[in-house]
């Protein structure tokens, strides 16, 4: 599919999808970086710094695709917007909180994102399929890592198990938003840009996860989620993070390296 040949509504939906995915990866990457230096063990300082770098790299590539489609500058997209203009899923509004909370959030995000990337692997929009092919290969390491931590906390005794369980219960309604809030996803499916609408991706994600949750005795998702999935309303936690990641740019927006 050639970008110029896309009809306006399909093109608009594609832009929305790219922005949502880029913002998801970008915001998660910045929360990950908040563990640098204070993770429970040195290995996790290294791991979360690396995860953060991967996600921010993915965001950069996706912002570039959006800029190629709609014009504009990837850095401006990443750092030049007001907090209410970001379109990440509200799962990513939470701060890092404690270790089990960060593990639960990342596991739910990574498994949902995996289902989303699966459905984009054969996208008719070739520039996106190319970036997704790379992202999928890197995400295998994220999945493996977070799955190992979920298993470790779930089977690691009363306190880690209780913390993980409480975090998952708290996060499930927001996790459903990762595969929601994309306007025109049915149009994208018709155009072959998505293999299937988001509701089908969500069902596939939950079906894949169900046996693991049952095996580990972890909380299962609610039937549905209420409220806006991708803003514009954001709480103090995301506003605090936004202040952090835009601080350097706001100090001198015209600066060049």
């Amino acid at each position, binding site marked *: 599919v050639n970008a110029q040949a896309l009809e306006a509504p399909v093109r608009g939906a594609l832009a929305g999808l790219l922005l949502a995915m880029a913002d998801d990866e970008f915001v998660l990457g910045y929360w990950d970086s908040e563990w640098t230096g204070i993770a429970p063990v040195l290995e996790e300082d290294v791991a979360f*710094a690396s995860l953060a770098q991967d996600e921010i790299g993915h965001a*950069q590539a996706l912002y570039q695709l959006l800029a190629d489609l709609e014009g504009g500058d990837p850095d401006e997209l990443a750092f030049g917007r007001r907090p209410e203009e970001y379109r990440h899923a509200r799962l990513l509004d939470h701060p890092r909180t404690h270790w089990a909370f960060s593990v639960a959030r990342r596991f739910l995000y990574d498994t949902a994102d995996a289902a989303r990337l699966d459905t984009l692997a054969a996208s008719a929009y070739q520039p996106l399929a*190319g970036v997704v092919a790379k*992202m*999928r290969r*890197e995400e295998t*390491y994220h*999945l493996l890592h977070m799955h190992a931590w979920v298993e470790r906390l779930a089977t690691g005794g009363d306190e880690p198990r209780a913390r993980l369980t409480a975090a998952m219960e708290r996060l499930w309604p927001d996790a459903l938003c990762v595969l929601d809030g994309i306007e025109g996803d049915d149009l994208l499916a018709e155009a072959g840009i998505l293999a299937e609408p988001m509701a089908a991706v969500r069902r596939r994600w939950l079906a894949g996860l169900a046996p693991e949750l049952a095996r580990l005795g972890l909380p299962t998702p609610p039937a549905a989620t209420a409220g806006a999935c991708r803003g514009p309303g954001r709480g103090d936690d995301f506003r605090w993070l936004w202040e952090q990641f835009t601080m350097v740019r706001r100090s001198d927006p015209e600066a060049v390296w």
Partner: protein
Amino acid sequence: VNQVETITDADVWGALAEVPDPEIPAVSVVDLGLVHQVALKDGRLRVELLPTFVGCPALELIRSSVAERLAGMAPVVEVEMTFAAPWTSDRITADGRRKLRESGFAPPGAAAPGDARPLFATIPLRPTATCPWCGSADTTLENLFGPTLCRTLFWCNRCRQPFEQFKAV
């Protein structure tokens, strides 16, 4: 001398083989399989490179090092990164794997996940590595993540040395 007529594809590949990877200088961009295409036509030399990792901070350095090495080989030299094909660690050459081992890096195993299978199904596939120092397969995965995006940390149970493996992606 008319350079357009005197240089060949082989000259270009020879020059590319002299450009080291900035993070693992023992291997070149050719050893790593980063070169997607070399096109030499009508005085225009165009080289397309594949990014190893999307977020690798060395990508621009690799691109500019290649451009610098090729400068002057044709009247117009273009070097670009492309996602047209996914770089996979399976592209590292046999020579590249030997050089990695010699500098203390275990080469990656096969990039098993591939493109076809659902990502969730890749979870049971833990990487394994052979110690580059003593050749033992009795090694333990210490951390999936390491000092750069492309490395994983291992421990050799036989010679009791830590080592790094290039990620299988």
